[in-house]
């Protein structure tokens, strides 16, 4: 009996392992096998394939291949024609006329017209619209009334003919091309009859998106992937690859899959030389780009102690930000001392602003100047040792690391930091409630210089409750012009003001990178993503 059992066990095990290992996908290359690019991301697409309703990058990585904008930003952060062949601003800069391409068809064969443009803009402005992008179009004349349900039309959107449309704003609106020209076009003949309030429930439509872009939607398998296939009739020519699959992988093991050739493109999460070496050994391309984003330590300006700019400057000196960039980012980042990232035009010349270099002594001196006492390695304020809470969210490995560095750096100037890691949802709740001293966060800033959404009066993002009349006045001035040259001076002044005030301790601007399989060529990566010129992606 025992023997028999053992034999059965061994046989079962053998058969199983043979079966399972025998069915490895064979690596035979057939001539006409479709060229499919496998792009990895950390979560599966959710199936919300409507560009103005989706709220997650995991969906926009799919829709960005299917849908297009009127104007598109290129890797030099300049605008290029996309669905609009050309555009011109009026003398007063209040309106812009877009000339649409004439040979563009939706994937279902219907022509793309100015009606679609008007529909797309009004969709976002609709009262019942549940997405979060209304603020982009709110400055169009008549949009506020339409949004409030007081009118049925928006005067500011004028259809001149089937392929010409004129859009007027009530004030000069500097990020016009970015926010209005960058709206993504959806088809009126598909969504026009759907009540906006129920748009999110149209699972059928949402999961079968119809766009104008280089790829047509193919398939969506919930929890796993979405795939698109080349659009043979694309106005700029058929893409050279046959399709793209956007699939979900585990962030921890993605690199292993990349090395095992299970995926073709993925985001690189660390610039660790060991990783880089492994990529290099396998000839994997690593494309890097400095993101339009900043990591910062937010400060609660409602706490009396932190209202003193000397204290905030002292913190900037106390934290070894250069060390963080050099060691934790392996040099792939820039220490930040102002609100603008280096890649956008508003970035101030470096000799115009103060650099808060790592200098604990200077930090201590500034704290003392601000009324603190420093004895026996402990910093006192108003007789009490200085103890501050520092909240930071999960999810970013480097941030979790530099939080430890801040903890130590602050201890070096006698300040005790209570590190509190938490979920992002919890953190934002606590920040909104003002239950914090300091917090860490990264924010993708706008390609435009306008940062009222951070530092303005009603910004949700102003967790620190930094209300600075001077700053607000300067920002209001900045959006009154469309010409970059005029705005540059205003924003330089603003950057200098913020640099002195240190409303946040900016930590760094960082590089992101994508790893691309050696077979795939012509991939370009810039802060706007990897899809620029996707039609020229090609397998060797």
């Amino acid at each position: 009996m025992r023997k028999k059992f053992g034999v059965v066990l061994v046989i079962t095990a053998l058969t199983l392992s043979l079966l399972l290992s025998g069915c490895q996908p064979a690596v035979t290359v057939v001539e006409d096998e479709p060229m499919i690019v496998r792009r990895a991301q950390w979560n599966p697409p959710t199936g919300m394939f409507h560009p103005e309703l989706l709220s997650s990058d995991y969906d926009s990585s799919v829709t960005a291949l299917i849908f297009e904008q009127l104007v598109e930003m290129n890797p030099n952060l300049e605008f290029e024609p996309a669905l609009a062949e050309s555009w011109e601003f009026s003398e007063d800069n209040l309106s812009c006329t877009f000339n649409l391409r004439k040979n563009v068809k939706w994937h279902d064969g219907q022509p793309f017209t100015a009606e679609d443009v008007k529909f797309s803009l009004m969709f976002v402005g609709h009262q019942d619209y549940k997405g979060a992008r209304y603020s982009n179009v709110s400055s169009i004349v008549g949009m506020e009334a339409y949004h409030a349900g007081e009118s049925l039309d928006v005067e500011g959107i004028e259809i001149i003919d089937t392929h010409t449309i004129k859009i007027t704003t009530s004030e000069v609106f500097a990020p016009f091309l970015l926010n209005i020209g960058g709206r993504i076009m959806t088809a009126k003949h598909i969504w026009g009859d759907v009540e906006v309030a129920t748009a999110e429930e149209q699972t059928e439509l949402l999961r079968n998106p119809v766009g104008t872009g280089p790829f047509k939607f193919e398939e969506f398998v919930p929890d796993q992937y979405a795939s698109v296939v080349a659009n043979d009739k694309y106005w700029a020519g058929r893409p050279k690859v046959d399709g793209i699959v956007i699939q979900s992988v585990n962030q921890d093991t993605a690199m292993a899959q990349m090395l095992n050739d299970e995926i073709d493109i993925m985001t690189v999460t660390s610039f660790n030389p060991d990783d880089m070496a492994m990529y290099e050994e396998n000839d994997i391309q690593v494309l890097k780009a400095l993101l339009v984003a900043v990591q910062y330590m937010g400060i609660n300006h409602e706490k009396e102690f932190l209202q003193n700019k000397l204290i905030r400057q002292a913190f900037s000196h106390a934290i070894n930000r250069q060390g963080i960039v050099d060691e934790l980012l392996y040099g792939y980042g820039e220490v930040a001392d102002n609100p603008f990232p280096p890649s956008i035009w508003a970035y101030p010349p470096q000799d115009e602003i103060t650099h808060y270099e790592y200098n604990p002594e200077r930090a201590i001196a500034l704290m003392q100047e601000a009324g603190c006492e420093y004895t026996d390695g402990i910093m006192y304020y108003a007789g009490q040792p200085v103890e501050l809470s520092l909240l930071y969210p999960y999810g970013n490995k480097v941030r979790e690391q530099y939080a430890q560095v801040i903890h130590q750096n602050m201890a070096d100037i006698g300040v005790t930091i209570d590190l509190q890691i938490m979920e992002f949802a919890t953190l934002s709740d606590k920040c909104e409630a003002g239950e914090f001293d300091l917090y860490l966060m990264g924010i993708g800033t706008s390609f435009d210089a306008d940062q009222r959404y951070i530092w303005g009066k009603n910004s949700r993002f102003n967790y620190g409750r930094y209300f600075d009349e001077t700053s607000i006045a300067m920002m209001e001035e900045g959006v009154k012009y469309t010409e970059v040259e005029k705005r540059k001076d205003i924003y330089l002044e603003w950057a200098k003001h913020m640099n002195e005030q240190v409303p946040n301790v900016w930590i760094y601007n960082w590089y992101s990178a994508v790893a691309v399989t050696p077979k795939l060529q012509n991939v370009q990566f810039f802060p706007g993503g990897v899809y620029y010129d996707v039609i020229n992606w090609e397998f060797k």
Partner: protein
Amino acid sequence: MRTFLIRRALLMIPVVLGISIIIFALIHLAPGDPFTHMIEADPNVTTEDYENLLRSVGYYDPLPLKYVKWVGQLLRGNIGHSISYREPVADLIGRRLSNTLLLAIPALCLSTIIAVPLGVISATRQYSIFDYIVTIIAFIGISIPAFFFALLLVKYIAFDLKLFPISGLSTIKSGFTGIRLVFDKLHHMALPITVLTFVQVAGRMRYTRSAMLEVVRQDYIRTARAKGLSERTVIYKHALRNALIPIVTILSVSLGRLLSGAVLTENVFNWPGMGTMVYKAIANRDYPVVMAGTMVLALTMLLANILADILYAFVDPRIRY
């Protein structure tokens, strides 16, 4: 039997109610709201729009009202609409539950098939070399964190030896059909099932062993031997049938456990199951999914317990309801 089942079902009501109230309160007490992640995606959103969104999902209602609304919907057969997945929770759970069962049931069967005979042999040969070896392997199984074991498998089996895929449900866009498709699926299931099986085998084997040790010192085993029955009949008919009584109970309970307990394994292998669904839904504060997901898991536990009672009656003639 029927009255027993009815009584059990009635007893379930306060328990289900209690579970739902506690989970409901906990998840709503946790700070944060379902749209927080939108801020990261879209910094331009205004406070007003944001509050409108929250209002549309009833975020500002007082807690008891929210609960009553939820129960009301539930009684009308509507378990809700996911905030982050934007689809009916029922569809989502249907999909995730079947994915989890795809791992849980084979793991349960496999671990039982391996564990019970090993436990029996190690009990009948107590203090033999075999017993010691099996015991040590079992202890290793109990003593290693599941996720760690999973990661080791990923590194050595999937990455170094390339025997199995690193993660996922199946080869994407493979175009496989028929038997190839089934094999491809099995190929992807192999590693997660190995983890879940190994982790369970240990405990179940120890359990079988001690149940058997308890049984073989009973008088009726001596009686059976005194009849001149062969050792095999004595062990596998007389002893095992009695030892099965506690084992069966443990089995059905562990099925309930397995569904939620697989969250770490699912996570490592990027397996879209119930555990990861609820885990992500908690992070996203997707209240309908959290509630429905945890309730489904809790109900499975309860049903597993009832199933245990029913099976009990099958294997033990002394129990009649």
